[in-house]
């Protein structure tokens, strides 16, 4: 007797939970050669709105945790990814049509990027911050602080983009203590959803990362114009009307990163961390002891 297949339902990840789309919509995810892979939830603007509420609620806890603690949490994601290598390799092979070797290399790269950014969590402030020279009996300090809620359009093309591109865009925003709403690759969303299962079972608090699957073209304008979103990473928005997205974002004074294409898109850099920080400068009296 043949065994009945048990296909996996790929849902959204909002506020630490896995809801279906509020709209009830889903779309077919196909492999590179057109074979049916799965049904994924097709997020609506209301799902985006709910994700912003969840992300906003999570800002206080995540940005308030110590930098060391954030580093540990991010490193733990890498640990868990390592344990589920086979699943991610398999998904890359099927959804992006990569060879097993290339997929394995992509998963390795994604894990290494988590580790790289995890290391920065308690170090970036030393590089970006400063003790400013002053001509008086007080200290003057500049420290970077998280911007708040960051909306990310994850890379939509490129070899291994659905995992490596996703990680490269999300990880740096998390380092400083921002919370993230990310619109995953439309064509290959499976890795992103599986990654959110990893996030849900690691130590990342619910709402810190929120993953939407569906059409970036439909969702991005709502995120760009949403007044409660503080920054916008358009790294994967090259195929959209991204100039208009920047115009929308300007209405509420968001920080914006422009689209990037090619194999080096969202390459690891300190600039990706500093892009979503605000520099706070304070003075403090010198102790009299």
């Amino acid at each position, binding site marked *: 007797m043949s065994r009945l297949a048990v296909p996996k339902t790929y849902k959204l990840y909002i506020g630490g939970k896995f809801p279906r789309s509020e709209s009830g919509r889903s779309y077919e995810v196909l492999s590179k050669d057109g074979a049916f892979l799965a049904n994924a939830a097709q997020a609506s603007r209301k799902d985006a*709105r709910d994700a*912003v509420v969840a992300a*906003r609620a999570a800002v206080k806890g995540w940005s308030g945790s110590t930098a060391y603690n954030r580093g540990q949490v991010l490193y733990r994601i890498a640990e868990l990814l390592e344990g589920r290598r086979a699943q991610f390799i398999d998904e890359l092979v099927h959804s992006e049509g990569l060879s097993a070797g290339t997929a394995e290399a992509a998963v390795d790269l994604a894990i290494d990027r988590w580790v790289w950014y995890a290391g920065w969590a308690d170090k970036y402030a030393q590089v970006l911050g400063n003790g400013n020279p002053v001509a008086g009996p007080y200290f003057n300090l500049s420290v970077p602080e998280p911007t708040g809620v960051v909306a990310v359009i994850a890379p939509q093309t490129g070899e291994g983009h659905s995992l490596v591109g996703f990680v490269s865009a999300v990880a740096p925003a998390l380092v400083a203590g921002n919370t993230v709403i990310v619109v995953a690759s439309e064509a290959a969303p499976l890795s992103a959803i599986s990654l959110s299962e990893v996030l849900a079972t690691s130590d990342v608090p619910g709402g810190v990362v929120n993953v939407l699957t569906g059409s970036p073209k439909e969702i991005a304008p*709502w995120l760009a*114009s*949403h*007044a*409660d*979103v503080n920054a916008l990473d358009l790294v994967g928005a090259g195929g959209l009307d991204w100039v208009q997205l920047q115009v*929308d974002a300007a*209405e*509420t004074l968001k920080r914006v990163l422009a689209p990037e294409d090619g194999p080096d898109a969202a390459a690891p850099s300190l600039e990706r961390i500093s892009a979503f920080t605000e520099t706070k400068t304070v003075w403090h009296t010198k102790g009299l002891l």
Partner: protein
Amino acid sequence: MTIDTGAGSRTAHPASSAEAARAPHTTAQSASSAGAARALDLLDGPVTDTTLRRYLEGIPGVDAVGLEQRAASLGTRSIKTSSKKLALDRVIELIDLTTLEGSDTPGKVRSLVAKAITPDPSDPSCPQVAAVCVYGDLVPVAIEALGAHHAPRAKAHGVTGISVAAVATAFPSGRASLAVKLADVADAVAAGADEIDMVIDRGAFLAGRYGEVFEQIVAVKEACRRKDGDDAHLKVILEVGELVTYDNVRRASWLAVLAGADFIKTSTGKVTSNATLPVTLLMLEVVRDWHRMTGEKVGVKPAGGIRTSKDAIKYLVTVAETAGEEWLQPHLFRFGASSLLNDVLLQRQKIRTGHYSGADYVTID
């Protein structure tokens, strides 16, 4: 689906008795005896614990499953954007903007009043709230801050203005002697409060001393009268969270209406269980039945726990479907709320600008 309204069906009075119930208003009697006289007709005798118990405990029990289903079905209405816009404005007009904290300062009350006058400074078309609700000792602060926007002064200029409501009678527990409660009320009324939110003695009610609760409401109603003949409106807080059962809520609603309440209000907002849609529906049914029997209109005020526009609109639907659309006016329906206003403002901004707004664009209370 219809709900067995219990008291309404049991007391299916002929028109003549409805006339009799209204009679006190045509004769020059004091407010206290008006309340008592309303009751006399229903009770077949003088108002005592015994007659009240015979009446109130004779009201059939509430069909809890049916009530909750009805409330749930009223909550599923789809509201189109143009209707939603009107509904949101109406919600604002029905809000009693409330601050009832031990930490209230004159400054906090002034900022509350400023918000009541101009809920959304970025939009001049935004309506004002119905009233501000504060503790009795802060009434003078609220009136001074309202200035020409205070309802009695505003009326002279032909606008509605904003009323000042004060909680009294040892709010929120109601555990004090009647003399202390009446002094509390008299204080607030003398300070200029337009509306008094009193709490019933839940202890007495639950112990079955209905007569005592009745007498207290009548006495407080009397204390709401001003020398100039103008009444402060009396809202009677049932504190449904402490009454526990729907049956008790229905009995307490009837008791308060019989005793002469202008409004029945769900809760103080100080216990874990506050206003819910089924409880409000139940109270609206009592008010509707009273109106059918006597032609008098009593208001309903759900308070506590209503935080989102979505919830507030469900209440509007429930009011319109139960008591009728004429109840959707500030003198017959209010929301006791503080954080609700901000959510309504965010929704208004969303409709006006076409994009989602955020908490940075409304005041922090």
